[in-house]
């Protein structure tokens, strides 16, 4: 059966699928195991839901295991996640012991499969300690860090480093995220799934429906930012930019779409500030959408004229990739992975201030033909570089590279 590969060929091109088949041929029959901490929710699970069946269709014996954990374990790994992103989070000894205990327990359950595998991909910090609990492992183990760990909180990184150093290789999303580790550190940017609800093509009436649902006027320019209400995403800066532009383009509309209920106290404060800043303007729409409103977000992105991601700090910025895939010009903060995706006058504009964002919004609204041109280039740039098929190609290349030795050049016969 090759249904999934055929479906991706329809989006990414048959060439890309042929390339994958050729790369996978020497790996057929090999055992590959992915381990992460959740089957549902989050970017990693989203990618694995498609990546694993694709690898299976390529006749690589691929499986996916999920860690079982308790409250202390998940509290600990949530803190680790925040600490790797630079927050000064102290993790108690009790939580660290729970982390190690849960890894030991999972190793008991998974050991046979992991020790027998040719390649094991361990995703993020949660299962990182499994390696030390599989002493008879015969394959290569790779730690895949999906987090922006460029400026981690040192004590937490030092703790994790003792586990991660033992791996055969690690993967980071950007060169700037790589750490000092005694093994090769591969650079593999993340990707979007073009066939997921978030990114698939939608019927025109479903896109049109969002205008009515959210009281938007389809005849007037629509600006959109999709992100959590977080200071690093600078929603207040977006409102400021909108206000500046309004003097010149009074009929524009702005949608700030983000998560609703949150257990993040800082998020609540930012949301309150955003509501206050937007209070007197009927053309600013704050949408609190549930976490699974993927099709709704997709439709909003397709309805928008310009998409903003005016982040002050950003990891890779997959929301930018998603916007570009919908053929929209993106105005993004000049930071993190946005720099890799947004090139001025080609796929959008990078900005450092609300004034800069306002300037670029005005420019684009005055040049509708340029918006179409930039949107078209943005979509093709994503097609060539940031679809799941490229991500898979790089995983296969990495596996081949580790399998045949860390030479600069590997010639397969």
């Amino acid at each position, binding site marked *: 059966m090759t249904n999934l590969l055929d479906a991706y060929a329809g989006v990414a091109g048959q060439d890309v699928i042929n390339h994958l088949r050729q790369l996978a041929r*020497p790996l057929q029959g090999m055992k590959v195991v992915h381990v992460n901490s959740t089957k549902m929710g989050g970017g990693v699970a989203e990618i694995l839901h498609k990546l694993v069946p694709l690898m299976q269709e390529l006749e690589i014996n691929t499986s996916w295991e999920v860690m079982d954990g308790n409250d202390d374990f998940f509290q600990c790994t949530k803190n680790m996640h925040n600490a790797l992103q630079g927050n000064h989070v102290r993790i108690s000894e009790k939580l660290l012991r729970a982390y190690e205990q849960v890894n030991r327990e999972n190793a008991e359950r998974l050991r046979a499969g992991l020790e027998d595998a040719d390649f094991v991909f361990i995703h993020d910090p949660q299962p990182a300690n499994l390696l030390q609990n599989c002493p008879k492992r015969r394959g290569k183990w790779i730690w895949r860090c999906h987090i922006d760990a460029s400026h981690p909180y040192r004590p937490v990184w030092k703790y994790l480093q003792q586990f991660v150093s033992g791996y055969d290789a690690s993967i980071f999303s950007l060169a700037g995220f790589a750490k000092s580790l005694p093994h090769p*550190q591969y650079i593999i940017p993340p990707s979007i799934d073009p066939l997921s609800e978030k990114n698939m093509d939608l019927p025109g009436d479903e896109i049109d429906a969002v205008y009515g649902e959210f009281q938007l006027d389809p005849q007037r320019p629509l600006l959109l930012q999709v992100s959590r209400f977080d200071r690093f995403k600078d929603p207040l800066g977006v409102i400021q930019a909108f206000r500046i532009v309004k003097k010149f383009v009074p009929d524009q509309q702005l949608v700030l779409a983000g998560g609703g209920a949150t257990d993040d106290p800082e998020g609540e404060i930012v949301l309150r500030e955003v509501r206050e800043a937007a209070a007197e303007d009927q053309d600013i729409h704050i949408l609190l959408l549930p976490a699974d409103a993927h099709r709704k977000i997709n439709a909003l992105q397709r309805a928008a004229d310009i998409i903003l991601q005016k982040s002050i700090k950003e990891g890779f910025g997959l929301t930018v990739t998603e916007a570009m895939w919908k053929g929209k010009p993106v105005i993004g903060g000049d930071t993190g992975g946005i*720099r890799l995706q947004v090139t001025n006058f080609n796929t959008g504009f990078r900005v450092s201030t609300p004034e800069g964002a306002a300037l670029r919004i005005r420019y684009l609204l005055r040049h509708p033909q340029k918006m179409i041109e930039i949107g078209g280039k943005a979509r093709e740039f994503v097609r*060539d570089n940031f679809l799941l098929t490229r991500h898979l190609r790089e995983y296969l*290349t990495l596996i081949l590279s580790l399998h045949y030795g860390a*030479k600069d*050049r590997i*010639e397969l016969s």
Partner: protein
Amino acid sequence: MTETTVQPSPGMGHGDFVIKDCALIAIATGSRAMTLKELRDGLRTIDEASIFYHFWGGLLQPRFEEREYNNDFAAWAWYHLHDATLAERMAVIDPIGFASLEALRGELLDIIEERLDEEEYLPWLQATSPFEFIRSQIVVFDTHKRAASPEELVRLFPDISASSIFYHFIDARRRLSHHGNDFSFWLAGFDGRYQELCNRLNGIDPYFGSLTDLKSELNDLFQEYFREVVI
């Protein structure tokens, strides 16, 4: 570990043209520079595979193809050091014109040294983002497609992938002693019958534009040549 093979692609020069394909993967070297002095120091010792990557890797790695500055060093000088003079001098370097990556390294170092001498503030100027030295690994595989004659190669050409073009036209510069391309190398084995075609192929500048553009240019050249020959 570093291993650089400077050899013709197996199967080239005699018999069938073996169409190969490749995939590139980037690896962080752990070396980074925040100032021009640090860039110079990094360049002195970095593996030449990293220099190759920063000039050519963009063709196969995520990077926008219509870049203002077409190598990573020049782009960093412009976007992160904000030194237009240096960016322009680095951008104009034509990597094809250098006999080896070592010679290219020497040219880069000369330009940086010259610029450091010109401006007193430059050695201390902090970039807005570091230059990350990256190297790459290339995995080469056989597509199992063969062309027994130049005419057959032309027929197969439209179905050759962009990464295959990278292998035969760009990567070949590292493998072939005269820094040519696999097509010319193979055609040269036909006792001079295709010398004119080789000359035209050697005249193509692959540095600007994308692999798709390059493929299209090569395809047009092949088609045109054989149309002329038939006429």
